């Protein structure tokens, strides 16, 4: 499989701060690849390194096999959809979309035809004469997408493009982006801090923390087999049990994670492959499709438990806060985690 983008030991320092620290990634051609992480984790800097807005302090970045370090943005075969869309306010929609073709010297007739095609692709046919200020957020987003795609890049970079949209529009755009990516077959590199978004759209996800990658994996593996405590807690919700409690339950001091929906509450005796704990019911949150319980174990640790409300007649809660309850889960549902402690002096 050919590589669209390859990072080898890439670092980017801003003064003392290493925004990106010894990152190596292989992004395959035609892949929907997400970079997920909290703000300041280095994911956006990685995207800007690919686009050419930043240059690496160390390491090598290859785009389709070609060394990119030192190349200015205008000599790279990648295009970016910016977080704030960055539409040119003095041009109408058509000129915005045709801009990349114009600066490359494509004749007017052809670039307008291609711009109209690109606009039609994002369902904005006929909006060419409007100015960006006359469009809604979602429409501007589509124009930004059309403006990037009209250049037929081999790699499309998306910097939290859905961040400014409301939830419904966001979910709709997620589906459309995924469809567009399949249809065009080009590599999408998508930066987001929203784990649901990353999981639902991507072929693979890289989880960033403090300038480093903690795990690169498929969404399913990321959720089912998180490698580190950070990934377990950042992707979805997880109970991370450490130290003595881990020793007692799992026979090892290593931290492990158990997902709230894999724990069951109730008085039935535990099966042979199950682990059972008891605690006081601390809190109950009704969430519609599920109910979340917090169980306080004897050592004080809170265990989050989610029970699906998948029976239409069972939306009542049989327990009261303060009640002692048993909880149990299958031994196989636990995932051993690595704990990455930040280096001293960073």
């Amino acid at each position, binding site marked *: 499989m050919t590589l669209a983008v390859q990072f080898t030991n890439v670092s980017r320092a801003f003064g003392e701060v290493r925004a990106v620290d010894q990152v190596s990634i292989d992004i395959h051609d035609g892949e929907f690849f997400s970079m997920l992480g909290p703000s300041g984790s280095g994911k956006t800097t990685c995207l800007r390194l690919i*686009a050419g*807005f930043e240059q690496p302090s160390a390491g090598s970045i290859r785009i389709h096999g070609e060394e990119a370090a030192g190349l200015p943005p205008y000599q790279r075969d990648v295009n*970016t959809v*910016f977080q704030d869309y960055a539409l*040119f306010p003095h041009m109408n929609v058509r000129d915005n979309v045709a*801009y990349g073709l114009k*600066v490359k010297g494509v004749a007017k007739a052809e670039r307008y035809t291609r711009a109209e095609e690109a606009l039609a692709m994002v369902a904005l046919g006929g909006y060419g004469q409007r100015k960006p200020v006359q469009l809604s957020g979602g429409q501007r987003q589509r124009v930004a997408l059309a403006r990037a795609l009209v250049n037929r890049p081999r790699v499309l970079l998306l910097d939290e493009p859905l961040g400014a949209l409301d939830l419904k529009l966001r979910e709709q755009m997620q589906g459309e982006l995924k469809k567009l990516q399949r249809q065009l077959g080009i590599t999408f590199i998508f930066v987001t801090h929203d784990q649901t978004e990353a999981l639902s759209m991507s072929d693979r996800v890289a989880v960033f923390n403090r300038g480093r990658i903690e795990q690169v994996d498929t969404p399913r593996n990321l959720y089912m087999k998180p490698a580190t405590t950070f990934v377990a807690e950042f992707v979805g919700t997880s109970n991370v049990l450490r130290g003595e409690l881990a020793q007692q339950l799992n026979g090892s001091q290593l931290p492990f994670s158990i997902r709230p929906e894999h724990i069951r509450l109730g008085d039935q005796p535990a099966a042979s492959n199950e682990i059972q704990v008891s605690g006081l019911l601390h809190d109950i949150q009704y969430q519609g499709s599920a109910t979340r319980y917090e169980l306080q174990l004897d050592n004080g640790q809170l265990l989050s438990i989610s029970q699906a409300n998948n029976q239409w007649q069972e939306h009542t809660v049989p327990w009261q806060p303060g009640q002692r309850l048993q909880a149990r889960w299958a031994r196989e549902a636990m995932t051993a985690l690595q704990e990455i402690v930040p280096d001293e002096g960073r």
Partner: protein
Amino acid sequence: MSLTVEKAAPAPMRRFSNLLYRRPNLYLALLLIPPLIWFGAIYLGSLLSLLWQGFYTFDDFTMAVTPELTLANFAALFNPSNFDIILRTLGMAIAVSIASATLAFPIAYYMARYTSGKTKAFFYIAVMMPMWASYIVKAYAWTLLLAKGGVAQWFVQQLNLGPVLQFILGIPGVGGSTLSTSHLGRFLVFVYIWLPFMILPIQASLERLPPSLLQASADLGARPWQTFTQVILPLSVPGIAAGSIFTFSLTLGDFIVPQLVGPPGYFIGSMVYAQQGAIGNMPMAAAFTLVPIVLIAVYLSIVKRLGAFDAL
């Protein structure tokens, strides 16, 4: 159990502020009427009454102004000698505006894009400090700088550029006998004095330019000069237009620099000054006053036609 609230009668101030809250238009009117009266009566009113005097008749023999309405003063603007003054001033205003914009843009660009914190404050002060000094002092200082044996000529001599200066001073319409009595000298002084008025609006317009627009342009394949001509320049045109309105109108109205530096001959400003002061021909002075107003109106409509304000 019922909750009762004692309703005391509100104090007069409270009643008044409640009234204003309920009637936002009254509130707005109270805020705006005083400045509008000032603007309307003192500013526009006096300007219009001045222009109205342009229709009065001036008797050349008795030197008396009579309120008999005539268009003679406005027609006199097109006399060759008067029209010459208008053209000379207009030419200078255009040259000064272009030169100021050319000089100001790189400084403004550097200020907006590459400075922050203390460096930016330093640049603001450096740009504005000349404006703290009296305008007349600066104009007189320039007469000395440009005079024969002055600093400017000393520099030219040190650099062995004497013949070049002589050649430039020999060009009709630009030169004169010395720098301080040449059109070139007058032009230099105007550019110096009005430059801050050009830098600050351009800097403000560049400051508003989001960096992501420049990155988007480069990302889409534009080389730096394409980004400059396609994105930076069009979006800074409102700033350039605002700055050039300053330099243009200030040059059109100035009456001191033309008297101190440069060859003899009136500018619009010094003509108004002479007509009104020395000659007492108020109607002609009023007629001349109309010229810069008309020129700036024409200039603004051209700038607007060119789309300078579309990005606002």
